[in-house]
């Protein structure tokens, strides 16, 4: 047993007051969870402390919350580890997670405050109903419904179940492991800047149907997700959802797969996301290292030197980048033709560029995807495999997949 101080961000709408911090002292084994700590505080100190939970075993996905700023499940975070994290951040910055957390004040926040409490907050990017309970409906579920989260097969349904080759379902087992806890939505840094972003949970769910061999509207789905300006090209590639997800879904990886599929379909999107990707890929093939000015030009107006004419948005964006370029010329940052004129960038020296081109040739004929979630790491111990099997047991078919 060990003593911990948990500092909880509380809020009761009926009080008419804003949110406030309250500390609770709890006493439990370090291997028990942050959720166990909260339930002890609720039992012993304040029965009105509101937290949503059910299975306590990282299966039901009810207890999404932020622990020391990290979005996670309360039941999957050991309280001893949460304390270590709080101590580490205090040691690094001289500021405890509590002091660094959202600057709200309330009774007791400065009274008898523990040096270094574990800070617990409701999930981010969604409204708070009470204490640690967030409104999943207005953000999470609305966005999930946005991606048509059901199968859209064509033709007469078969008399019994759809029969598919098991191999063809392996690809989507990772996104099927989602338990809808919302931790990834809470952590999403794109949504923080653009609340309209469809977001990691819904896009991972979208891939689950895009990759499903029984679905007949793959192209329509990809068009929809790519053509929405708050869709797949609004993801800022920050990896937050990957670290937040308690089930290894890696929503960002699913978003990147959606981009790849949309690209293969040749879908032109209003964000010029596909043009940006293709411009990047082609520049490295030609030059080996990145020609930034060419990337900028080609992202907005591919082939402008040829016959394609840029869109209105492209012209606006390119004009918009002129002040930045002028500032760069003034300070000397961009004061060379190489940096200013698209395409003047040098190639790699002494035949190295041909080596890069040869790699393109080889990779383009294979285009292999190596998914570690599915293939696992070679030489892992048998026990570890067993653990992983259990870990992934909520994902249908994943047990066979792991072998």
């Amino acid at each position, binding site marked *: 047993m060990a003593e911990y101080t948990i500092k909880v961000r509380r809020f009761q709408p009926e009080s008419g007051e804003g949110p406030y911090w309250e500390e609770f002292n709890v006493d439990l084994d370090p291997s028990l969870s942050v959720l166990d700590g909260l339930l002890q505080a609720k039992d012993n100190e304040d029965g009105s402390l509101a937290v949503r939970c059910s299975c306590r075993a990282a299966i039901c996905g009810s207890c999404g919350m932020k622990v020391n700023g990290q979005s996670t499940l309360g039941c999957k975070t050991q309280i001893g580890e949460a304390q270590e994290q709080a101590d*580490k951040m205090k*040691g*690094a*910055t001289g500021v405890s997670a509590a002091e*660094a957390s959202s600057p709200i004040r309330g009774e007791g926040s400065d009274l008898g405050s523990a040096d270094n409490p574990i800070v617990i907050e409701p999930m981010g990017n969604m409204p708070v109903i009470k204490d640690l309970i967030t409104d999943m409906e207005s953000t999470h579920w609305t966005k999930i419904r946005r991606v048509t989260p059901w199968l859209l097969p064509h033709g007469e349904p078969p008399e019994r179940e759809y029969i598919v080759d098991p191999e063809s379902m392996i690809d989507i087992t990772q996104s099927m492991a989602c338990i809808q806890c919302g931790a990834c939505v809470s952590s999403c*840094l*794109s949504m*923080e*800047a*653009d609340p309209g*972003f469809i977001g990691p949970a819904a896009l991972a769910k979208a891939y689950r149907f895009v990759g499903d061999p029984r679905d007949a509207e793959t192209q329509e789905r990809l068009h929809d997700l790519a053509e929405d*300006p708050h869709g797949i*090209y*609004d993801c*800022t*590639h920050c*990896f*937050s959802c*990957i*670290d937040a997800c308690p089930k290894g879904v890696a929503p960002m990886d699913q978003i*990147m797969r959606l981009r*790849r599929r949309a*690209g293969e379909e040749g879908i032109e999107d209003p*964000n*010029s996301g596909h043009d*940006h*990707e293709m411009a*990047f*890929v082609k520049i*490295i093939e030609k030059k*080996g*290292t*990145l020609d*930034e000015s060419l*990337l900028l030009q080609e992202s907005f107006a591919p082939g402008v030197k040829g016959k394609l004419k840029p869109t209105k948005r492209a012209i606006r*964006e390119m004009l*918009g980048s002129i*002040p*930045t370029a002028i*500032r*760069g010329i003034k*300070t000397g*940052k961009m004061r060379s033709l190489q940096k200013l004129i698209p395409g003047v960038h040098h190639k*790699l020296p002494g035949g*190295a560029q041909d*080596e*890069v081109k*040869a*790699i393109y040739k*080889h*990779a*383009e004929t*294979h*285009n*292999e*995807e190596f998914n*570690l979630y599915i*293939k696992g*790491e*070679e030489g892992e111990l048998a026990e570890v495999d067993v653990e992983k099997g259990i870990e992934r047991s909520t994902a249908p078919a994943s047990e066979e997949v792991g072998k």
Partner: protein
Amino acid sequence: MSDEKIKVAYWPGCVSRGFTPELHGSMALVAERLGIELVELDRANCCGAGVIAEHNQELADTLNARTFALAQQTGLSMMNICSTCQGAQSECQQRLDADSAYRAHVNEALSGQGLSYEKGEEGGWTNKNFLWLLVEDYGLDRLAAQVKRPLSGLRVGPFYGCYIVRPKERLGYNHFPDRDIYLEKVIEVLGGQVVEYDGARKCCGFPVITMARETSLRQAGTHVGDAIDAGADCLVTPCPLCHLNLDMQQPEAAKVVNRDLGLAVLHLPQLVGLALGAEPKELGMSKHIASTGWVEERLTAGAAA
């Protein structure tokens, strides 16, 4: 840490020789003063920044396997100076290391060039950002002994860049759990004062600057604004792509968040260089968009006090 000379295969990346030339220059200067020998990989290629992997994973893995193989040819471990290179290369390395058959398949594409990437033993061949190398191999004590002009009174906000802090499982945090507080450690050793603010480990927004400009600039502007509100004199970053959004785009970001900004953003080697006694001009600080004048004033005031 020992005093033995450190020699590394050095991958400077694209942006440090493109829109942030001051990074490449300041790294060379600082390496010399620290006694780190850099063997530049001038034939190596772009890491793909996650964009090539988005297009064709095998292509990204092979391109980076080539860079690793070129580094291994020198018999040295590799160093990069870009969080994005670190993240994109670690991602490919993780896949290559996971499976010998896949590695052999990728190496097949390199065989015509006399190259091959070999998986290192635990603690063997590594690819580390300058930040990791500084703390783990060079050593903070040794760095402290090199400080000629402590950054007394300078309040510095760390800004890591997503690719060097997430995902933790891929970036060696099981062996080096403190990698997400190294910037704070370095700032302290150099005599500066760490500023805690909300954005230190958040996204600068750069990856979507051409795709979702407002989302992108709102991120950059918010973090710079938060750091100013927390009392920072400057930010420091180990990532030149973050630098592009936080510094080069700062005037544009200010328009999106609708407030005055004007906060200097230093590359990690520049901050180290200042503490080693180098002049702001030789560290290329005049090339920045957000003026570094205030940092220089604070340092002068700190030295006089």
